[in-house]
């Protein structure tokens, strides 16, 4: 059941990779996140070189996200103007990220940068999710409703210049926050192989104050273009996109999403987020462990690429 990956230049058990794609697709169906932040570390755990893991995961996300964008387009829940602004700065961010990744690779620090960023990111996201899910869970048991969001209130964002009208989101705000957000997500996508929805969705809700119904569609629209651009740039600059690996992951992923959505409908939101938070924290601790414990061999070998 082994298959040889032409770009990773190694043999893998294809049922394992298919299962991994399915599992990540299932989780993204259940939790409504892309799952890139779990797929990249898991591929690295499996032995795929970090560069190939990052670039190929970006490709997988582009494939799995596409159908989601179509669904939201039909429902008219995509703010194309807001999405367009974020895509434009996201493409610049993704190019900067691919360049940064190439520099880190030459310095021999790409692996460390990827692992350390994941520890910080997953630790942070996991802690927030755990805290939030526990609070909601407790509130439900006490019979009180969780504190509502302050929609329509003004914050510091409204003091910034270069205002633009976003009709679909019913907003008149400065373009600076969406541009910065798009740029940061672009860098994360290129360096970590993630779509960045875990960052952009909360930012769009709490900082930009976009209506919740257009947030997911607009975020998916941006993720599609930024991961596509990241894939193409990694292919062109670093030769690290493995089509065969992506093919197996996408096939597993699209099936996983469908079953995940059905399973997700049967579980309560805060229970889901609690489970997800535990999973995210376990992966973060696993990566931290690898950085802290003395490696079996302090020397490591890279052949071929300088």
């Amino acid at each position, binding site marked *: 059941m082994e298959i040889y990956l032409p770009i990773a230049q190694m043999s893998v058990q294809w049922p394992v990779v298919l299962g991994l794609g399915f599992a990540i697709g299932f989780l993204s169906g259940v939790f409504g996140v892309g799952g890139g932040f779990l797929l990249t570390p898991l591929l690295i755990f499996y032995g795929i070189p970090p560069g190939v893991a990052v670039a190929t995961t970006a490709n997988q996300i582009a494939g799995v996200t596409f159908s989601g964008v179509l669904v939201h387009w039909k429902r008219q829940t995509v703010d194309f103007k807001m999405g367009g602004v974020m895509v434009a700065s996201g493409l610049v961010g993704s190019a900067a990220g691919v360049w940064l990744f190439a520099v880190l690779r030459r310095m021999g620090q790409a692996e460390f940068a990827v692992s350390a960023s994941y520890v910080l990111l997953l630790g942070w996201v996991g802690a927030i999710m755990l805290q939030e899910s526990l609070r909601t869970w407790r509130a439900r048991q006490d019979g009180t409703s969780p504190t509502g969001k302050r929609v329509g209130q003004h914050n510091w964002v409204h003091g910034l210049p270069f205002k633009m009208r976003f009709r679909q989101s019913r907003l008149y705000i400065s373009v600076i926050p969406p541009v910065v957000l798009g740029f940061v997500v672009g860098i994360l996508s290129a360096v970590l192989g993630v779509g960045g929805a875990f960052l952009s969705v909360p930012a769009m809700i709490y900082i930009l104050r976009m209506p919740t119904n257009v947030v997911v569609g607009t975020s998916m629209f941006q993720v599609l273009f930024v991961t*596509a651009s990241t*894939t*193409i*740039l990694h292919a062109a600059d670093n030769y690290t996109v493995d089509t065969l690996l992506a093919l197996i992951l996408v096939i597993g992923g699209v099936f996983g999403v469908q079953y995940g959505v059905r399973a997700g409908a049967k579980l309560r939101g805060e229970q889901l987020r609690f489970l997800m938070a535990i999973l995210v924290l376990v992966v973060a601790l696993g990566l931290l462990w690898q950085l*802290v414990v003395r490696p079996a061999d302090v*020397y490591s070998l890279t052949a071929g690429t300088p």
Partner: protein
Amino acid sequence: MRALLIALLFMTAPALAEEGLTSGLSQDYLQITSTFAGSELTVFGDIENPTGTDPRDIVVVVRGPDTLMTVRRKDRIAGLWINNARAKMWLPAYYFVTATRPLNDIAEADTLARYELGLYDLRAEILASDGDERPYIASLVRAQKRAGLYIQTDSGVEMQSATLFRVHVPIPAAVPRGSYTVEVYLFRGGDVVAAQSTPFYVDQAGLERRVFEFAHTRPLTYGVFTVLMAVALGWASMFLFRNRA
């Protein structure tokens, strides 16, 4: 240096002694395919016109393409293990050596070193090194041994008669593509009396090869193609599940 020595032996061996070597390979072209889980190459040969009854030894070396390797050393910095030093060197991507008996019994250490016979006699061309290069080379040899890419065995040469010999060379799945050489040495009394060098090629076959070539010759088109493929699959899955639901 080594190539020169072999060339000299080619020219002078027939004149110095009647003794010589003929050798051949089971294949001169090895293909890596999608189900590739390693393979085997057979080197066979014959000692020609043996004279006298001195003990003779055969040493067989297979070398892969020279590759630029970077070895990095992690140090503990602020509690974290981080790559902190490196050495860059050219060494073969694959190296196999075996003989009729342990190499140290066949010849003196300096003779073995001259022909680069033995894992720890490989000469690396050092491009850069933070500090002494020897620990880097030693760790590289260890890593390559673990990966099955550097192999040294004591008595892999099977003598089928007084003059006929055969060697099975394991080629693991992880070998890189490129041009390889098989070198066969005939030793008598601790010295090389004949040598022969034969090339063979390892290549990626079929779909894998085409994907690799595509990715490296037209990387931009390749990137666009892989994105379109992933997107098309995602789109196709929508129709599949809509019909089922």
